[in-house]
């Protein structure tokens, strides 16, 4: 099994905010048990590690992958023993900047017994409380933990903390069947399909929503009862939720945690381009404000104003793309 962690990412907001901090990804793949799982976990870890660097701009040195078999892929740094995990997380805590973001993704099999949730590792397992203790070293950073294992639901409660997002493949430790959430979550971060707002970045919320929907679809296609119900806790309440309304605190937190650095070039851009980015932020704000008032406005008035703003934003976007050489 694995646990993987991706760190990263850029919070939503203006140009300046997008540039702050570095991103780190830690992938932990635990015991596989069967060849097919071993193949899957290596494939997912490799895809995620590659995408972190190539798609999302995470520096190679900030990507750490620990796996059952250290020889299974060239990107794997070491075996995913508990000791190695402790070593890597302590090391990360020592070098990460205060504004950095850390994403930890765990693949593998989990278990739940006597109130204790575990991830099965080569050698001693690691449980949720052990992991929570290790994360204490990352208190100032924004941390997201995605546990895709079976019976992972117990991690929601034990890892809950401020400034931390926790996603689990199951809603409780009792959902102990093999999960497919990990595959779909990986696809969300390694492809374009989950980028539902088309801003070129994938937020944790987008990845979660995508994976959750695809899990349901896979079970439906196979005519199976859904035996895994993923949840997300964005506010540290230790409970989380599955269906996340856009305005919910969980969703707000997860939507501001992005994989993918954006337009670092914008910060160093020529004044003309910088002005366009500032205009873009202004128009986006106006659109967001308009959408918030939608239910209180006559439909025709809303539509007219929305169209005007979208046209303005489209012209702005086109101008930015031209200046950045993206054509249009």
């Amino acid at each position: 099994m694995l646990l993987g962690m991706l760190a990263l990412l850029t919070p939503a907001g203006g140009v300046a905010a997008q540039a702050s901090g570095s991103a780190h990804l830690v992938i932990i793949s635990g015991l596989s048990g069967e060849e097919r799982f071993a193949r899957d976990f290596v494939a997912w870890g490799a895809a995620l590690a590659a995408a972190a660097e190539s798609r999302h701009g995470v520096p190679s040195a900030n990507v750490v992958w620990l796996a059952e078999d250290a020889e299974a892929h060239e990107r794997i740094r070491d075996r995913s023993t508990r000791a190695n995990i402790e070593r890597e997380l302590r090391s990360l805590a020592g070098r990460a900047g205060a504004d950095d973001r850390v994403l930890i993704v765990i693949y593998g099999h989990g278990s739940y017994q006597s109130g204790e949730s575990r991830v099965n590792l080569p050698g001693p397992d690691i449980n949720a409380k052990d992991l929570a203790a290790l994360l204490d070293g990352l208190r100032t950073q924004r941390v997201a933990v995605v546990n895709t294992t079976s019976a992972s639901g117990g991690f929601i409660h034990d890892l809950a903390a401020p400034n931390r997002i926790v996603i689990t493949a199951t809603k409780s430790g009792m959902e102990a069947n093999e999960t497919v959430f990990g595959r779909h979550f990986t696809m969300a971060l390694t492809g374009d399909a989950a980028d539902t707002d088309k801003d070129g970045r994938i937020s944790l919320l987008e990845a979660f929503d995508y994976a959750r929907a695809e899990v349901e679809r896979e079970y439906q296609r196979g005519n199976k009862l859904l035996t895994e119900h993923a949840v997300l806790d964005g506010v540290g309440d230790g409970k989380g939720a599955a269906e996340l309304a856009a305005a919910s605190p969980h969703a707000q937190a997860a939507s501001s945690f992005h994989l993918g650095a954006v337009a670092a070039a914008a910060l160093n851009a020529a004044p003309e381009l910088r002005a366009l980015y500032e205009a873009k932020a202004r128009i986006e704000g106006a659109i967001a404000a308009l959408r918030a008032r939608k239910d209180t406005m006559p439909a025709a008035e809303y539509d007219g104003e929305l169209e005007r703003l979208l046209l303005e934003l489209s012209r702005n976007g086109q101008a930015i793309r031209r200046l950045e050489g993206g054509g249009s």
Partner: protein
Amino acid sequence: MRAALLAGAVLLATAVVQPACARQQPGGPAEELYRTGRYDEAIAALRTRDDATSRRLLVRVLLDTGRYEEAESAALAGGSPDAVPAELANALGEALYARGKLQAAEAAFARAASSSAPDALQARLNLAVAKWERGERDEAMRELDAFIDIYNDGTARSAEALTAVATAVSYLGIRDPQLFHDAVRAYEEAAQADPSLAAPKLREGELFLAKYNSTDASALFREVLAVNPRHPVALLGLARAKAFDGTDEAMALVDSSLAVNAAAPAALTFRAQLHLGLEDYESAVRDAERALEANPASLDALATLGAVHFLRGDRGAHDRARRRALELNPRYGRFDVTVAEMAVQQRRYTDAVEIGRRALELDPESWSAHALVGLTELRLGNVDSARRSLEAAFTGDPYNVWVKNTLDLLDTYPQYVTRPTARFELFLHGDEADVLALYMSELAEEAYDELSQRYGARPTPPIRVEVYPSHADFSVRSVGLAGLGALGIAFGNILALDSPAARTAGEFNWGSTLWHEIAHSVTLAASRHRVPRWLTEGISVLEERRARPGWGEDVSLDFLIALKSGRILPVSDLNAGFVRPTYPEQIIHAYYQASLVAGYIEQQYGERALRDMLRAYADGRTHEQVLRDVLRTEPDAFDRAFDAHLRSTFATQLAALDVPARASMARGPAQVGGEFVTALRAARSALEAGRLDEAEQQAGRARSLFPEYAGADGPYLLLRDVHLQAGDTAAAAAALREHVARRESDYDAHIALADLLERLGDARGAADVLERAMYIHPYDAAVHDRMAALYAATGQHARVVRERRAILALNPVNRADALYRLALALLDAGDRQGARREVLRALELAPNFAEAQELLLRLQGETQ
């Protein structure tokens, strides 16, 4: 009909209650002979006795065995009614009542009731029931209500008295349904008081059946039959329970009952109703009239006779029967309920509602009439009035599971939406309405045009199509209960069917199901709802086959087994295959056979023959008349000719199958041998061994022997595998095309064929196959995306738009992208305004969606 059990059962029950003496001498030889069903010996023994107890029992045995005249004589013992001793007055009353001599019977009951005879309480009950049956319900209720006091003051201690109390209380339940529980308790106390007494068990069984509980009813009837296997009332009760359960054993059981008492009006009436269900009017009339010969005052027999006359179109005879019944009981709403129930069985829904309402004018407390009107109104699509009737029915009879289930179903209707088309009103669940409507509206309109033209009848729009994503809900909508095996149902202009979401992908083809039901709507309209079941089903399956390649039932291995084993019904009995199948597959065989009959009629008698037959049925002609007048043949000759046609059609297949003489349908096709099976096995072995030429040859041989067989182990998939291994994609695609042309529901095969066709560069062919797959499982967004690409490649812009709409309807995670692609499709289709609308919707969700921004600017005319 079910409600009649309660009312009609009274005389049955009184007929089986044994005189008190039987309890006093439980081990006496005559009593024992009677108790165990040795009736002739019991009669002989009792004729040697002259005491009142023995004479009461003699009357009872004679009544049970249908010797009504002798029973009356035995009670009179040569005297006049007034001279009969009080101890025999009730027995005389029952003998007179059984022969319809109501006034004299009531006089006898009154005399016994006012005496100290051991059966005075029974006489009091009989008197109250007689008033009830005359329509004097309020007075009867007052007298029956007194039985509660009798129970409460503890004077009803004997089994006979407790049985009488229970029966009285069961009548009172019409106004207080909770009293049915008290009736059951009293029957059980009676059975405990004297376990040898059959009456409380029989009456309790009848009550359970009247309250829709055939399981407990059957157990009680079986308990009686364990002691007396010839008990005519228990046999009749069990027959009714079996009919309630929808099994085919009812007819044999009622025949057994009539073997003991050939003149029993209740059994004859019930058998007449069974005949009516099979649309065998002659037999139904014969039995109903025999019942009336035995008892000219039998209300149930009159009602059944009235129903037969109504369905045969003889309104005069129907009206005469109704007048007779109402002269006996001016409040006898049951007459109209019986006619209405039979009309429903024959799909005459509008008539049924009208008649049901007439019943309510006579008897507003007829909860069965309220239920019938409500359920039938729903079949006519009148949801609001249906709900009102159903709620009234449920208030009066909360045990009616059909009504309860249907009301629960109606509570889910706010989750549905209505999508109108030119001639249809699609009633779809909100979760799937957007995607289903895309395909359903187009198909429904096509079916309407094609079928109405062929059969010369245009059902008056709108036709309402209700589609249920839960099979249980569809089942309740269809028959009021869960568990119906069907996929669709037609009530004329109201159709209901399973949505593809109700079943696993590959279990059925909703497109062919919808086509089938629309065909019913047309043939019902063409025949004014008089088409027999076998013909409307046959035409519907035939039309499925015409609609699309592969649609509609084709010949199956088990049909051929049944044909070879002599289990296929003659056309004249084909209705029985639908109504009371005698083996599990028979109803499927009946559908298929009926379609062959319809095809045979067209082939032999011309394209207009079916249309002409429907018109003849509309004119009220019987099956026999239709065959004579339209086809110019006799029923027997037609049966023989069709049988010869059937055997000739499948001569090759039958010769290639070795079916054991004692073939069992339960054991299925596994028991079949012969050349076809041998060839299939050889092909499979050769394929597994890599001998591709031999595998192809053997599979080809199997195909030529039984070309219709397209099972998972059939020749077409074998040939597909052979060709794929040989690297011949075109041949593999051809084999798979043959397979899907016979397997309308094999979703995976459709997708696999589309894959092969795409590999061969046949975009149009691939799109066509995927189009057909949508009639099986329209919920896979990836397939819609693929279809959109294929249609775009072949310039079918309208279809690209439809596919893009389908993807949106499936609620994709990436909704902005789906809207953008829809906008592009609309633009390609020439709809700039639509494209603008959709791209704005996309940008509302994802304002920085670069491609959508570019499209918006392009639509604005700011870029190219």
